[in-house]
């Protein structure tokens, strides 16, 4: 492909190889067209209103440095799981998979691709430059005995990944996606997750984002859900200076349930943005969204949730809530919960709050002899616990608690 370096975005992709995945031509064409004469979006564009990309545009990524196998395996958070390690361009697949579970490289086993559904230049770049990725298939009626764990560690460089998940009819699985980065390295990773959830499948995805400063962690989730399926994405952002999650779930079968939850604990100069879209295309479905976060120091949190109810999606029940606590004068929160509704027989609601801890509750605890700091910590922990109750895995929960305790000096 001929490249004329005329702007920062084009500069950004210099040196990246075009994708090796056998992608539909139409998809690539759409991406190419989208990128024509495009530069990094500015805060004038609606989806980047609260996100300044200058930092990314001007960042110098460090050289890629591969980790040793032993170092990599230390990064895992679950001891008993089917673990995939991804370190920059290297992917290590697990051996000894049970029948019903298949994990392959996406470059080897070309999967079906969803039609283009990206909202920004990064989604388009991913289509053109995705080098790596895995394809996971869970067969019909298969209930996995242990979770799948994907440990993605970046140590310098720029990466676009494309992971495909295919869950068969009535399958049940839990997937832990852990993104990390090594200290003292500048890196960028944009990961596209594509989920196909067949009828009656029960799928729980947990994302644990625990990157170091200097890493840009971009996620793009696109899911298609079939009838009577249950699908959850729980995004826990523990650390990372620049995190952006863009989740879209298309609910295409009746009586499906969708849960999107998120929790973020921010301090220093962290910027975390969560964008969600739930597209209710058919009738009788339910969706629940709970995003909660605390922001201290100079951190900024962004939440933009959209519930889209199409004309035929009668009897939809959608609930969305976003609650934030600001801990410092320089922190900021931007929340935009949206409803776009074209069907009449629906129950849709959303709520958003930004504030501080309840003084009565603080007083109650202090009157019982707790120090101001302990009382505050306790209430903040309780505030965030709403989301953590969705984490149905003790080891993962312990990891999350431990990391928060380390960063915020909160003792669990």
């Amino acid at each position, binding site marked *: 492909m001929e490249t004329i370096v005329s702007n920062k975005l084009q500069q950004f992709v210099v040196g990246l190889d075009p994708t090796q995945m056998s992608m539909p031509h139409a998809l690539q064409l759409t991406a190419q067209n989208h990128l024509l004469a495009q530069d990094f979006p500015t805060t004038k564009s*609606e989806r980047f209103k*609260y996100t300044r990309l200058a930092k990314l545009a001007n960042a110098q990524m460090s050289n890629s440095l591969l980790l040793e196998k032993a170092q990599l395996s230390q990064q895992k958070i679950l001891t008993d799981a089917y673990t995939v390690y991804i370190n920059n361009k290297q992917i290590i697949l697990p051996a000894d998979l049970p029948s019903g579970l298949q994990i392959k490289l996406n470059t080897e086993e070309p999967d079906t691709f969803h039609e283009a559904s990206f909202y920004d230049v990064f989604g388009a770049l991913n289509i053109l430059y995705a080098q790596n990725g895995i394809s996971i298939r869970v067969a019909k009626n298969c209930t996995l005995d242990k979770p799948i764990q994907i440990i993605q560690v970046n140590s310098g460089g720029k990466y676009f990944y494309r992971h495909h998940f295919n869950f068969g009819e009535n399958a049940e699985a839990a997937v832990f996606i852990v993104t990390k980065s090594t200290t003292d390295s500048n890196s960028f990773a944009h990961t596209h997750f594509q989920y196909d959830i067949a009828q009656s499948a029960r799928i729980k995805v947990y994302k644990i984002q625990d990157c170091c400063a200097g890493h840009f962690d971009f996620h793009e989730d696109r899911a298609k859900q079939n009838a009577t399926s249950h699908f959850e994405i729980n995004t826990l952002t523990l650390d990372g200076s620049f995190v952006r999650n863009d989740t879209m779930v298309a609910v295409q079968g009746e009586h499906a349930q969708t849960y999107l939850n998120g929790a973020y604990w921010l301090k220093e100069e962290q910027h975390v943005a969560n964008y969600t879209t739930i597209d209710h295309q058919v009738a009788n479905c339910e969706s629940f969204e709970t995003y909660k976060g605390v922001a201290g120091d100079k951190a900024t949190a962004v939440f933009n949730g959209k519930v889209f109810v199409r*004309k035929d999606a*009668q009897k939809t029940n959608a609930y969305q809530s976003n609650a*934030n606590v*600001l*801990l*410092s*004068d*320089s*922190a*900021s*929160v*931007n*929340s*935009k*919960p*949206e*409803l*776009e*509704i*074209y*069907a*009449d*027989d*629906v*129950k*849709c*609601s*959303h*709520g*958003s*709050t*930004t*504030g*501080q801890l309840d003084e009565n509750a603080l007083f109650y605890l202090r009157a019982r002899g707790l120090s101001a700091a302990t009382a505050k910590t306790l209430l903040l922990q309780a505030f965030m616990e709403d989301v953590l109750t969705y984490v149905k895995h003790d080891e993962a929960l312990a990891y999350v608690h431990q990391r928060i305790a380390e960063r915020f000096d909160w003792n669990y």
Partner: protein
Amino acid sequence: MSNYTENELAKDLENQEYKFGFVTDIESDTVPVGLDEGIIRLISSKKNEPQWLLDYRLKAYAIWQEMTEPEWAHVRYQKPDFQGISYYSAPKQTKKYESWDDVDPEMKETMKKLGISMEEQQRLTGVAVDFVMDSVSVATSFKEKLSELGIIFCSFSDAVQEHPALVQKYMGTVVPSTDNFYAALNGAVFTDGSFCYIPKGVRCPMELSTYFRINAGGTGQFERTLVVADEGAYVSYLEGCTAPQRDENQLHAAVVELIALQDAEIKYSTVQNWYPGDKEGKGGVFNFVTKRGICENNAKISWTQVETGSAVTWKYPSCILKGDHSVGEFYSVAVTNNHQQADTGTKMVHLGKNTKSTIISKGISAGKSQNSYRGLVQIHKGAHNARNFSQCDSLLMTDECGAHTFPYIECKNPSAKIEHEATTSKIGEDQLFYCMQRGISEEKAISLIVNGYCKEVLNQLPMEFAVEAQKLLAISLEGSVG
């Protein structure tokens, strides 16, 4: 009347689409169609304006030419041809009326049809009406009584002539021409409007009200309203609109500026019932309005609106809570039917300490309409202990309409408390059943439920307006049972 058959009645009812759809035949003084510097100079000279105002217009025009029409709103329409509009139209007789009897009988008739007969208003309600037909104010009443208190309430052009210092001091301070496309256009071509000044410590004894009308065919109305409440003053201002039925789209791009100085309070109520277009979505008024108020210390601005008309509405009455302890309120009922589209809401910008804002928005969508709430709550760094409560409810009447909510909440101060909640649902079937079971017809039951649903907002309206608004709600939703 003996041979008036049922069929004829049905026919009459069918034609009775828009109750206030009529055109008054008064000779209008209209400038050529189109917009350029020459037209602006012509408007300015026709109105005998001072140089600074002409400069203001020309500057706004220059700004407007640099701007593009905003496209972010959730509405679709054929963009108006700005060169196809006549920017000035005034009833021919330019002499002012000495007494009510001098007023053109035809115009009196118009007012009667609107249900705002001057005599009645004067006698019964004590409301001073600054009646604006097309763009020049024709009759003003109660002026004397108000002037005793030092209150200035007159048309914008009169204010420019009589109180140029006041106008120059405040005009464009809340909505500068650079604000947006329509505000810039208004700044360049506004023809008339209302001006109101309440002096220090004066409580305006009556509700001030202006009826806006669009009349001559093909003229857009570019009203400019400026309300200044000096320290400790109070005023309640009413604005209501009805427009005659027209096939071509009529553009309405008004600017309203409210200035509440220290300890002042302004209550601004609107009932908007421009022509919404026919059942097929043909015609109707484009209502692209910029309304904003600024509050100094301890001041309060309260916006109440009942929006039932217009084909396309694009309107965000806002409050800039600049002073400490200032309060902003926004109460809104927006009804859309047939092919109407509304994108309306508010902006609450908290700058001062201990500022408070309340947003109550009730949207009702019927027919094939689209109704959106779009609001911004912005807490700036210095706005300690800012408090906001927002509630946006939407009611859907048919399965072909849409109701949308786009709230923006931006917080930069940790001591602020912001709550936002929104719901969207259908009219409660159990409620309908309950009413109908008790012998209330479906239409009446819906009207009852809708009125109850809007009560919180309607309660904010002055009495006579509230009655009018309730009637309007019922008329707007006629035949909308889904």
